[in-house]
């Protein structure tokens, strides 16, 4: 047996029914590994498919090497000014126009574009679209780029192979259309805290009584018993007010939270995430997911596929095996789900923004 087999995931548990009425227990648990009972078989190792022969192994991917070329050519990375990976981008104009995932790149002045061959460029923000979670930008000073060759998604059906690239080295990855093409309703943003519904007698703030697993609040270091005084400079005295403030913001946005801990006033910056995922994963029900995007819902139209990608691969192109770009990966949702925006949903509108930017209306002389 290999060492890997003993690496077990944590067991699922019941979510708190009060805080997460939508969440239900998902049955697929990791219990004591069955193999331990087969002592007689332990001496004869069973053949295991070598990693390179698996679905996304090197040998299998040889088949998509050629078709992956156009995909890789129009994909780029967004990285911090220090070179830390942020997300992926899709080149949509030979003169440097790119699209990326807006909620992953809230401030384009703090990031830059990196092309496959290594060149980097600053980004000029042109248009930010909350509905699609896309931001259109231009890489300053780059030209003659390979832009995405878009194809139609209408003919795609369950089981059709798709291809994207993953990681800083942009290796190809394959998967399939795995579920119905549909709208993904949004449910707002959340911090991932459970609050005391009674206003404290001391009349100050809102007391936290629980923190969701892998939530924005947990990442920012908030704890049970902290008392929230204000969010984004708005004072809060009731739990409903916290909902109101958080809900009018988008997943991916930062909010400043001031709070009391053991009588001492402190503050932290919390980056909001989609409420649906925070609630469904309240106690870590979606374990071993390899990381998920901050914003996972609220898309007018989405393709669902099973390509094994990371949150930092979002914003990059999705292609068919004949090399047509059919969408842009927009959210890593859980262990089995990635959403992509189908090209038809955004491209007409984005082209208008590109044209308007290329041909700005002539300045009117002041009368």
């Amino acid at each position, binding site marked *: 047996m290999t060492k*890997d*087999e003993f*690496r*077990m*995931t944590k067991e699922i548990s019941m979510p708190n029914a009060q805080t997460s009425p939508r969440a*239900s*227990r*998902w*049955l*697929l*648990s*990791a219990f004591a590994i*069955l*193999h331990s009972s*087969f*002592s*007689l*078989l332990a001496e*004869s*190792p*069973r*053949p*295991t*498919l070598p990693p390179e*022969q*698996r*679905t*996304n192994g090197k*040998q*299998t991917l*040889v*088949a*998509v090497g*050629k*078709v992956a070329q156009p995909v890789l050519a129009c994909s780029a990375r967004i990285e911090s000014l220090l070179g830390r990976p942020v997300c992926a981008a899709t080149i949509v104009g030979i003169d440097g126009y790119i699209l990326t995932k807006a909620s992953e790149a809230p401030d384009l002045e703090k990031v830059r574009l990196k092309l496959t061959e290594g060149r980097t460029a600053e980004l000029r923000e042109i248009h930010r679209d909350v509905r699609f979670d896309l931001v259109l930008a231009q890489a300053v000073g780059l030209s003659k780029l390979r832009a995405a060759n878009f194809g139609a998604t209408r003919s795609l059906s*369950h*089981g*059709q*192979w798709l291809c994207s690239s993953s990681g800083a080295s942009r290796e190809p990855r394959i*998967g*399939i*259309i*795995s*579920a*119905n093409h*549909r709208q993904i309703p949004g449910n707002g943003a959340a911090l991932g805290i459970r609050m005391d519904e009674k206003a404290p007698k001391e009349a100050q703030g809102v007391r936290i009584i629980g923190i969701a697993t892998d939530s924005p609040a947990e990442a920012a270091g908030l704890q049970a018993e902290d008392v929230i005084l204000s969010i984004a400079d708005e004072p809060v005295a009731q739990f409903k007010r916290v909902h109101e403030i958080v809900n009018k913001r988008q997943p991916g946005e930062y909010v400043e939270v001031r709070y009391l801990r053991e009588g001492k006033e402190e503050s932290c910056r919390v980056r909001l995430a989609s409420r649906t995922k925070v609630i*469904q994963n309240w106690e870590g*029900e*979606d*374990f*071993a*997911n390899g990381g998920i995007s901050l914003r996972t819902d609220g898309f007018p139209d989405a393709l*669902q596929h*099973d390509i*094994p990608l990371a949150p930092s691969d979002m914003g990059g192109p999705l292609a068919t*095996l004949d090399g047509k770009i059919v969408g842009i990966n927009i959210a890593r949702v*859980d*262990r*089995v*789900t990635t959403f992509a925006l189908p090209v038809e949903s955004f491209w007409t509108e984005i082209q208008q923004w590109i044209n308007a930017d290329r041909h700005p209306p002539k300045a009117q002389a002041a009368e």
Partner: protein
Amino acid sequence: MPHFVPRFLRLTATLLVALTSVAEAAEQNDLASLLRIQAEVQKRLPQVRPSLVAIQTGGGTASGVIISSTGLILTAAHVVDKPGRDIRVVLDDGSVTTAKSLGLDQATDAALAQLKDRGKPWPSVNLSREVVKAQPGEWCFALGHPGGFDKARGAVLRVGKIVKQTANSLHTDCVLMGGDSGGPLFNLAGEVIGIHSQIWENRDQNVHVSMAPFLRSWEAMQASQVIKTWGVGAGGYLGVATRMSDAVELEVADVIDGSPAQKAGVRVGDVILGVNSDAMTDQQQFTATIKTKAAGDLVTLLLRTDGKERKVPVTLAQRPREGE
């Protein structure tokens, strides 16, 4: 000495398997074969999809698959938890009905449930009885309701490869998550070869119950029994070692003293022609066939001794423990 022989058999089978999977890998590296896989999955999907069900037990949500027109469901033991339990079942089209859990095998996570009669046949799929064919490198596809039933999304498909086969399970790179439990893994013929059971950290570590424990304990599970252990090792114990003869026939190479085979009169040099109604042609197939039987099962060997065919009934025993 008695223990050397069975181990040797296993080793032979292992080597055969390893050679096969290397040979198959070479032909899978072109685009055409990927597209062929796609075509086969897309052909099978509409045939098998109506038999997928979502299971709601009150404690959570999971999946299952209908394998007979009378409404027998295969699922995972940790889904139904105990026999006689009422479970809510959601069909692919969103209609809701109920089922009762039958027996389960806690050691391997296999379980059966029975849909209530609806006066017409249920949509169903076949299960693969040739457990040994599900070898590393074979393409397969998984269906299920990860995260629970979602009408707008529908069933979720995954396509991948078998990574490993063990006595009771298959490992694949079809990525599963909570809610998939109890759902079906199919071969490209559209037959059920596994039931989703558990996941480990890595995306290539998705574990399904193979058909072996279902086939072995079928009657006990249908009779609503809870199987907690099932003897030692992999299935029933016969007590013969085999070799391929010069005439490329399956031949008895050794018979273990005191084994069921010896008591039934099996002799060295006998040619094994069949087990029950199945013809036997190689060692791997023979070993696998015996492994799917449990201790206490009666099997009929068709042998040829000195040119004459004879039928020998043998009741399989528990595999002897090390040192006994």
